């Protein structure tokens, strides 16, 4: 065994209340081993304690953390090692790669300078030697023109390249263990695939062990030998990957496996973890959609450009959206898929005129939205609404939920009196699955999923016909995602809403959409029904997108 974690407990001091120190227990007794030359994955949703567990190994936790238990590495208990011993191990025997590469690299030093640091410190190299070795490392992680890149600063590289640099830094002293904390979560799907393959290749070449932390079971299934499932600070289940996927024992693990939207099957409603754990089964009967429903929204040649200043008086045009066409029928859902920079979010905001478009037309109910005057535009706001991505930023932190819900009604003069508006607000809260007592609470008292429901309720106060969902579930955990997606489907069935669902996650889009638009660099690359896109993608890019999606554990062909 390379690393053995035994009964690890981590608590954070939260300050004194009435003279008594308050503690928050993030990890409550976790034990598992990391073998030599093996990959162990720590899986869990947010708040499960997986990152805290991994960071405890090298004690990279904040000052107010208290650890207890044993962390045995090569016969030595790291928990009780002093700082200089730990510093000798860090970067040399055990190295780390973190989630956000842009923030994790020092912005004022060049890539080369940062790469050379561990080489000079741990291997005692001279600067010139270290520089040459750094160049070789960059080449190994697949960075083109490594000599030139050594002198570059982190912000000059793309997200994927930054992560490769982080990996190079971690590998520089040939560590025996690599701790990777959600290394691909912040990256696009196609880049994610590249980084995973890189890590796998390097692991083989250097005979390294990897401790991989992730929330994505699909990802974990593809790369891990051994899986440890955590929830709320304890280990629910652990074992070889094949067993975990084929024959899970724990109810939570089973629920986690069942609740992911699959590319293959398409249930009417996703399973939610709690429901699954209580033994309910998935609903497969979906209400059929009317293929001849009237066209509600028709977009022709929509374009949006931004102008950037270059030089003294010159401006450069950046075309974020170029020539997008589609039709949305009443009661249907149009899914828009693309990676970052594809222009999908800009397009969504332009539909609502939150960005002013540079060209094209959007016909809604016979009128061109882009040429409305102010009064008509205000009227239009009632009929098309939007739910944003970040649930932590889309609600005003200083408004109570009640104030948030009542404001749109007051602006558009819905409801005859304040009492009636309060009534509607409370009824809407219950409709989205929240308790009516939420009315007087502030957003920070709710979780991400609950906040998204409040945002949806806010849209519903205006009784809209079209809802634009801009990455509305991307920031949520799997289980919560399932709940919100189910809610959206329920609302669509009940109220006849039409959705434009924007996302980078093809599996989610597949679940909720009838028709799918694939965007890249501002253009529509492919457009087809959801089944067609999956079964028979026509374009190369679409195929690449599909291929990049982690599929979970696929047993090797016999």
């Amino acid at each position, binding site marked *: 065994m390379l690393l053995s974690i035994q009964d690890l407990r981590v608590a954070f001091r939260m300050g004194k*209340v009435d003279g008594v120190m308050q503690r928050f227990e993030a990890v409550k007794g976790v034990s598992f081993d990391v073998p030599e030359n093996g990959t162990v994955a720590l899986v869990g949703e947010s708040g499960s304690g997986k990152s805290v567990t991994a960071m405890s190994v090298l004690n990279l936790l904040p000052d107010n953390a208290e650890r207890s238990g044993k962390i045995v590495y090569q016969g030595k208990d790291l928990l009780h090692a002093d700082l200089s011993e730990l510093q000798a191990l860090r970067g040399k025997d055990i190295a780390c790669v973190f989630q956000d590469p842009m923030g994790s690299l020092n912005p004022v030093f060049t890539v080369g300078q940062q790469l050379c640091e561990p080489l000079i410190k741990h291997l005692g190299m001279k600067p010139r030697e270290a520089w040459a070795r750094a160049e070789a490392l960059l080449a190994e992680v697949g960075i083109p023109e490594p000599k030139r890149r050594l002198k570059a600063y982190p912000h000059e590289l793309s997200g994927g390249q930054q992560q490769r640099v982080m990996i190079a830094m971690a590998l520089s002293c040939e560590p025996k263990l690599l701790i990777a904390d959600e290394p691909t979560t912040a990256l696009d799907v196609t880049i994610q695939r590249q980084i995973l393959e890189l890590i796998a290749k390097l692991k083989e070449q250097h005979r390294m062990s990897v401790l991989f932390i992730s929330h994505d079971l699909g990802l974990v299934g593809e790369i891990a030998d051994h899986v440890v499932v955590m929830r709320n600070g304890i280990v629910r289940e652990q074992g070889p990957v094949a067993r975990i996927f084929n024959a899970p024992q724990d109810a939570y693990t089973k629920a986690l496996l069942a609740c992911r939207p699959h590319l293959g099957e398409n249930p009417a409603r996703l399973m939610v973890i709690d429901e699954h754990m209580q033994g309910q089964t998935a609903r497969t009967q979906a209400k059929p959609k009317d293929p001849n429903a009237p066209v509600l929204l028709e977009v022709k040649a929509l374009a949006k450009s931004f102008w950037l200043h270059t030089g003294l008086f010159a401006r450069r045009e950046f075309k974020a959206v170029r020539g997008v066409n589609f039709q949305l029928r009443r009661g249907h859902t149009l899914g828009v898929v693309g990676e970052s920079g594809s222009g999908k979010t800009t397009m969504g*905001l332009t539909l*609502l005129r*939150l960005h002013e478009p540079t060209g094209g037309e959007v016909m809604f109910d016979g009128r061109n939205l882009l040429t409305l005057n102010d009064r008509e535009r*205000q009227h239009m*706001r*009632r009929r098309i*609404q*939007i739910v*944003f*991505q*970040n649930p*932590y*930023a*889309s*609600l*005003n*932190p*200083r*408004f*109570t939920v*009640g104030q948030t819900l009542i*404001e*749109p009604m007051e*602006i*558009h003069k819905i409801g005859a009196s304040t009492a*009636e508006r309060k*009534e*509607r607000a*409370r*009824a*809407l809260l219950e*409709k989205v699955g929240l308790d*009516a*007592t939420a*009315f*007087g*609470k*502030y*957003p*920070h*008292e709710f979780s991400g999923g609950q906040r998204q429901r409040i*945002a949806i309720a*806010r849209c*519903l106060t*205006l*009784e809209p*016909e079209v809802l634009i969902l801009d990455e509305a579930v991307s920031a949520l955990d799997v289980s919560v995602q399932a709940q919100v997606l189910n809610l959206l489907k329920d609302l669509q069935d*009940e*109220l*006849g809403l039409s959705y434009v669902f924007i996302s980078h996650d093809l599996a989610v889009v597949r679940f909720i959409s009838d028709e799918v638009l694939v965007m890249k660099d501002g253009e529509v690359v492919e457009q087809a029904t959801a089944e067609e896109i999956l079964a028979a993608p026509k374009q190369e890019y679409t195929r690449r997108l599909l291929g990049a999606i982690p599929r979970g554990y696929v047993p090797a062909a016999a």
Partner: protein
Amino acid sequence: MTSAVLPSPPPQRAPVQRSEGVWHAAWKRLLKDRVGIASLAVVALFIVLIVLTALGLVAKSWQAEVGVPNARPGFMGAAPPEAAAVIETPKGPNVDLSDVDPLAPRYKEWAERAAKLKTEEAPRAQTLPLGGDRLGRDVLVKAMKGTQTSVFVGLMGAVFAAIIGTLLGALAGFFGGKVGDFLEWLYNVFTAIPDILLILAFAAVFGRGVGSVAIILSLVGWTGLYRQVRAEFLKHSVREYVRAAEAIGASSMSRMFKHILPNVSHVIFVRMSLLVVGFIKYEVILSYLGLGVGVDDVSWGTMLAEAQSELILGYWWQLAAATAFMAVFITAFSLMTDALRDALDPKLRGLE
């Protein structure tokens, strides 16, 4: 477009409880901070003092010369009688000049007239609680009245500066474009001219006096707050909750002052508290230079101005009193501001 949300007769609903907001929660945190509470108590005491002096209940007669010039503080005891004349005073009756003195016939008449008048001459005290200044005025009373003047100037100036800075910063940060450019130009003009020059120039316009000093300081001091408010508004204008407000149809004014301002108010508050301290210190310097409050007013600055010449002669009590009052107030106020900032912070981290 159907809606299933129609009120049938509303069922009995439990009364809605409102959760605590940011300020309420910050207040509760502050109560647990011992240093914060202590400094808050001290500041509150000062505020009470200021209100009392403003109403005239205390320190109204600070100009009365109740003590001997440069009376010593009570705990030091009276000054020893001065070693008197150097020259020997002549003894014996005065020389009789009545034959050459043109006024001689009228002396008797004047003496009779004078006897009819009475002057109240209260005996001058030998010592005063904190000593007396060179005119014999009570230093303790002056210090109290001076507190009112100085703190008043600081607070009023800070409030005015905050109003100007917030308004302009909001407009610049939210709208940008031509409005933003114009306000940037204004900001550049005001910051290009050195502060002291600007103060002196405005003093030429507004003259001396408590209100004038407050206005002058605010006209010079709004720039720092403007910068910060503008940056905050720039940051918040692109946040999603503001976009969401635009999406539901809220007007620009509504978005600026109903949505963004409450999220920025804590920053403004902390900055304003810093301005209070800065302005009080500036007022001291201005009054020293003769540009601050009028001749008929007393402030910590005027006391310090007098103290300089007194110190050479060995009279240190006015300096000590002014410095002590000022130090206690500013230290308490600064600690209170720090505590308030800490109390507001953790809550905000959860909100943002």
